[in-house]
């Protein structure tokens, strides 16, 4: 991504080239040492997530139990936010883990973190459920509001405390980053993520030109990415 720094003209004896080479050997090392590793203090070390997926892929169901203990709260939070009720959020989380279990062998580390993968699976299942529900409601005429129930009890399930610290910190960073977006940027991105709307659908919903919505999504996401890179679930993904 960063351009290769110029190392000056190549003189016949390559002295500059070599000097640059030797100079720079000190640099990458310090760059590497200070590279942000937000999870390095936590008990759930980064490679373990991938190991768990690899174990799930060969049929070890305890790996799913461990992934559940690590990410159930995050996944349940996003499921609940999208579907808006407890029974459906439960169903979504069950379906999401079943899918992760089936597809563990196809997980590609190059495409991102395990946590991101699980989140995107959960989001898709939740959006599917909402779409199916709205189809049903169109047919039966039931209002979604009738289905709302009490939010689940807080604190009924406790994960690993180190993991909870990470989660709290990460959540604060995400909220802060979202706070730095312009409200229209934030709305466009949230409509896409939590309601599964395409850019055209967002433009229609907000009665704005499509081009404006596209720009908001792009600039907003770029800003979030730049701001959130240090708290990505895994670095360098």
């Amino acid at each position: 991504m960063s351009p290769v720094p110029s190392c000056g003209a190549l003189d016949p004896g390559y002295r500059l080239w070599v000097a640059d080479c030797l100079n720079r050997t000190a640099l990458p090392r310090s760059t590497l040492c200070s590279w942000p590793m937000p999870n390095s203090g936590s008990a759930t070390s980064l490679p373990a997530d991938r190991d768990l997926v690899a174990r799930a892929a060969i049929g070890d169901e305890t790996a799913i139990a461990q992934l559940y203990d690590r990410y159930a709260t995050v996944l349940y939070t996003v499921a609940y936010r999208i579907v808006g009720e407890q029974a459906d959020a439960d169903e979504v989380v069950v379906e999401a883990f079943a899918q992760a279990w089936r597809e563990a062998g196809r997980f590609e580390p190059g495409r991102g973190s395990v946590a991101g993968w699980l989140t995107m699976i959960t989001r898709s299942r939740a959006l599917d459920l909402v779409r199916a529900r709205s189809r049903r409601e169109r047919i039966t005429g039931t209002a979604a509001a009738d289905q709302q129930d009490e939010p689940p009890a807080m604190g009924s399930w406790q994960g690993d405390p180190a993991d909870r610290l990470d989660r709290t910190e990460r959540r604060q960073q995400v909220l802060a980053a979202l706070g730095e977006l312009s409200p229209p940027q934030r709305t466009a991105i949230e409509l896409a993520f939590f309601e599964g709307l395409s850019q055209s659908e967002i433009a229609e919903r907000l009665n704005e030109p499509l081009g404006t919505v596209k720009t908001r999504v792009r600039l907003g996401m770029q800003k979030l990415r730049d701001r959130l890179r240090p708290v990505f679930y895994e670095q360098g993904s």
Partner: protein
Amino acid sequence: MSTPDDASIRDLAAAYALGALSPEETRAFEAYLAGSPEARREVAEFRETAALLAVAGPEMRPGPALRQRVLDRVRATKAAALPLPPAQPSPVKARIPLLAWAALAAAIAIAVGLGSKVRVLTTTLATRDSTIAAQRQALSEQANQLASRENVLASLLEPGVQLVQLTKQGDPDPRIQLYWDRIHNTAVLHASKLQPTPSGRTYQLWFIRDGKPVPSVTFDVAPAGEALVPGVTVPTGGKISAAAVTEEPSGGSQQPTSPIILVGTAPKS
């Protein structure tokens, strides 16, 4: 470096990661994505960004029973995928005399259909034979791969092997590990997350010996950015202070013709 067309399609990466493109845009972008590792990396980053949006809402904790439900579901999926146990002797057998006539009628009906069934089965068997042959072939290729991997592993485990890490300034991704066997003056090069070179260009390894670059192997990376090069000869007859990688014309160069991409110091002997 990128053309305006490139730039405008690249602009779709964020919306793609959010799943917010139209079906036509999605198809166009995926076609572009297939040929651009950089765009794939960008999408991965936007996907990570999008995944973090999940934690923004008020945190909700699942009820205590959900964990068991998830595990039951996973177990059920696993059981469904396993082969069925052999059938138990059926109590119906005892009633065969009563059903003998019906069975005979059924047997006649089956015999009529049997001729065509045999032909179908013969074809199926032939297909299966060729599948088995193909699998045997694949297996022996894998055995060869395994053997060469064993060799690489053996050379990594030699006593006196030291690791030289080559990195790119300001970018943690591309990385080369050079396992340098100082007793035999050989090395195994392992590259990861390097961008594939354009056609007509290749990566070349250089050793810096007594302050001068000595050309070493050239190598190309797989589309995923990986390369494994065993049996690299390390030049002797002087002090090796560092190793570096540049991009050179195919076939390699005798002296570096382009800036250093990755570099790492050699450990003190």
